[in-house]
């Protein structure tokens, strides 16, 4: 059973954890954990987004609209600070907006700028330096992460990555018994649970493991945040199974490392540079296409579902190229553009159904 987000973070606060709201993107979770800060990622809070329109143009993506609405309506004391990773233009401006122009969010606001590709030697050196700057900023906030603590959390996070990888392996081998909806809870847990709680949830699931009898088409899902509940429920309705994923929310932040460095900052930097290609980090588009093909092959899927967020530039620029390369490789694709603030109608279901039939 995955704990619910708000009761969970309230409990953690009682246990002495400070809680930081994290805007979407890559950030070094281990440094925060080492400073006894529980990072709670703000991707999909349930809020009324009408408020957002007073501050943002309608052409700003729904993730940012939800984030601002959530931050402006925050119950006092729920979170102790905000971390803004530099992910895209909209989040960049949202970060300075809430710090500089909207005093309502009087919470401490910390920024983190990971280097953008194509990577060079300077990117590596810079990342190590800004990781230390982040730690310095957290110290100013009254929390401190010792090197040994960061190393401990690096080890814990390595287990978490491993657990999720295993999960997708089970899904590929039809050994995960639950529906996509239950899978979604597990995936979302990555955004707010402590590593040991994630691992505990995985432990419970592994006890129930049995061959999945309800076999529908296998789907590989990709996008910045393709996890709108309605989409997942539609997939369940159509008996399709997510068996591989490529989202910024989850596996695009998973490092691919076999060695470990003793210096925690160096290790964090190596991990960052070993994560899969993502447009928000400016990596090569050809490499991204190759990566998706290789993932699709290893998961033995015939189709890739791109679930994008309307007005999301980083992802939208890549799609025409990716779709044409994947199609050339014999992989079917479907692009569903979602507007998180508006919900999904029957037209989506129809298109999804047609796509699944091709698989």
């Amino acid at each position, binding site marked *: 059973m995955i704990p619910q987000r708000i009761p969970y973070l309230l409990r953690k606060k009682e246990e002495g954890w400070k809680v930081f709201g994290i805007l979407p993107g890559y950030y070094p979770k281990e440094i925060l954990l080492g400073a006894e800060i529980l990072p709670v990622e703000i991707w999909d809070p349930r809020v009324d987004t009408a408020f957002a329109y*007073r*501050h*943002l*143009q309608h*052409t*700003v993506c729904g993730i940012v609209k939800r984030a601002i609405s959530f931050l402006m309506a925050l119950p006092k004391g729920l979170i102790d600070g905000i971390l*803004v990773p*530099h992910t*895209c*233009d*909209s989040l*960049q*401006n*949202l*970060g*300075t*907006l809430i*710090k*500089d*122009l*909207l005093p309502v969010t009087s919470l401490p606001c910390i*920024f983190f*700028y990971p*280097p*953008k*590709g*194509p990577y*060079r*030697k*300077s*990117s590596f*050196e*810079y990342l190590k*330096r*800004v990781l230390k*700057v982040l730690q310095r900023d957290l110290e100013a906030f009254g929390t401190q992460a010792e090197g040994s603590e960061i190393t401990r959390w690096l080890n814990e996070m390595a287990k978490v990555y491993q657990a999720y990888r295993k999960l997708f392996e089970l899904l590929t081998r039809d050994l995960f018994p639950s529906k996509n909806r239950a899978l979604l809870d597990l995936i979302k847990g990555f955004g707010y649970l402590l590593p040991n709680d994630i691992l505990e949830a995985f432990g419970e699931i592994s006890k129930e493991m049995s061959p999945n009898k309800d076999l529908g088409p296998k789907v590989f899902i990709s996008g910045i945040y393709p996890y709108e509940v309605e989409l997942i429920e539609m997939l369940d309705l159509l008996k399709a199974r997510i068996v591989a994923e490529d989202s910024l929310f989850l596996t695009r932040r998973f490092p691919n490392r076999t060695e470990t460095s003793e210096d925690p900052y160096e290790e964090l930097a190596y991990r960052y540079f070993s994560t899969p290609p993502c*447009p*928000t980090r*400016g990596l*090569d*588009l*050809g490499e991204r296409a190759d990566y998706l093909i290789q993932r699709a092959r290893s998961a033995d899927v015939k189709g890739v579902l791109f679930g994008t967020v*309307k*007005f999301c*530039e*980083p992802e*939208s*620029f*890549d*799609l*025409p*190229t990716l*779709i*044409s390369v994947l199609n050339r490789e014999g992989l079917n694709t479907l692009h569903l*553009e979602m507007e998180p603030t508006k919900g999904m109608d029957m037209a989506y279901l129809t298109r999804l159904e047609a796509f699944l039939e091709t698989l």
Partner: protein
Amino acid sequence: MFGQVRYWALKELFIPLLRTYEAKRRGSRPRKGSLPLSSNRVLKGLIMSHYYLGRYAKGVLPVAWVTSGAPVELLRPFGFYTIYPENHSALCAAQKMGGGLCLVAEERGYSKDLCSYAKIDLGVFFSGRTPVGRLPKPDLLFASNNICGTVLYWYRVLSKEYSIPLIVFDTPFNYGPLRQEDLDYMLDQIEEIIEKLQRISKREFRMERLIKTMRLSKATCELWQEILNTMKQIPAPATIFDIFSHMLPIVSLRGLRSAHSYYQVLYWELLQRVRDKVSPLSEERIRLLWDNIAIWYKMRDLSELMMRHKANLVGATYTNAWAETIVHMDPTRPFESLAKAYSLVILNNNLYHRLELIRKLATEFKVNGVIMHSARSCKPYSLGQYDIKRILQERYNLPCLILEGDIADERYYSDEGNKTRIEAFLESLI
């Protein structure tokens, strides 16, 4: 060999003739009631020759496509012929080709919500349609994210399509003052970029050439600043629409002698107007500041509308962007000054900086209000405007109008709606 002879013959013989001819020719239809600058003709010759020569540059010089905020001074010592796709997209938009070219990209699967500069450029790539005849294919792409992340996504597509290298100058966003760590990172990158440019151009880097380019660049930007300063006069000697259309040299020819020479001509003309108290308006009753990129396909209409109401847009945060950070440009410390001058630009700076900048410009240009173009294309320039407007009005009593539209795609501009709103705003200022 033939290509080289042709290129140099064009450059040394034909282009000067073309420019002289253009300078003497009658200009295009002036805006109703406006007073066209005679420099316009010189500018036209300069633009034509830039794109015309570009057609023959391929194979003779390495060709680089560059973003408007990239430190182009680094390319000049290696002899790159530079093309600015953003500028070219603005040119297409001014010729009302924007929507059509965007559509070409949309038909190829590009979302209609993307930046229209990028979509126009992709539309040109797929259709080959351009008002300049032909663009030289690039050998290199050079981008900096100091204006937006969009250029990074867009240039990745170009890099894949053309199979050519992309060099990125990564400028960490300034949420506060410039940090030493960020400066060091940019200095390291400049060294890496130079190494890469040496390999691509097969030419040695010579520091004295960079310094010479930077001197020229600095002098040009300072001249640009002086040009903008003439607009502080009451009445102003021109309109912001005139100034917008004179931006190509500062954006695309920075670091080249031609840009500097051209702005001397423009500056003297404006200065003369100031001395003679010549204004494009019969009476300048309202002075305004513009925020964000121009609406390239609506320049004439907006200009005429303003004139009818005796209102003049005299300054803009956009035109100021090529002058604002020039104080950091010190050719005796070339790398450090490049890093500072390029990373502290308006779009790489926080919104508090933006707010203060607008206030400063509003005071210096003695304006009655601000028109903020909320550009569908440009998130980094537009997101935050609603709150800047609120603060300027509530705290500083500076009236503002938000104008929804787009920089280059005319399909996203509502003529009637915006006209009514502008008129109501102008009336409220009298």
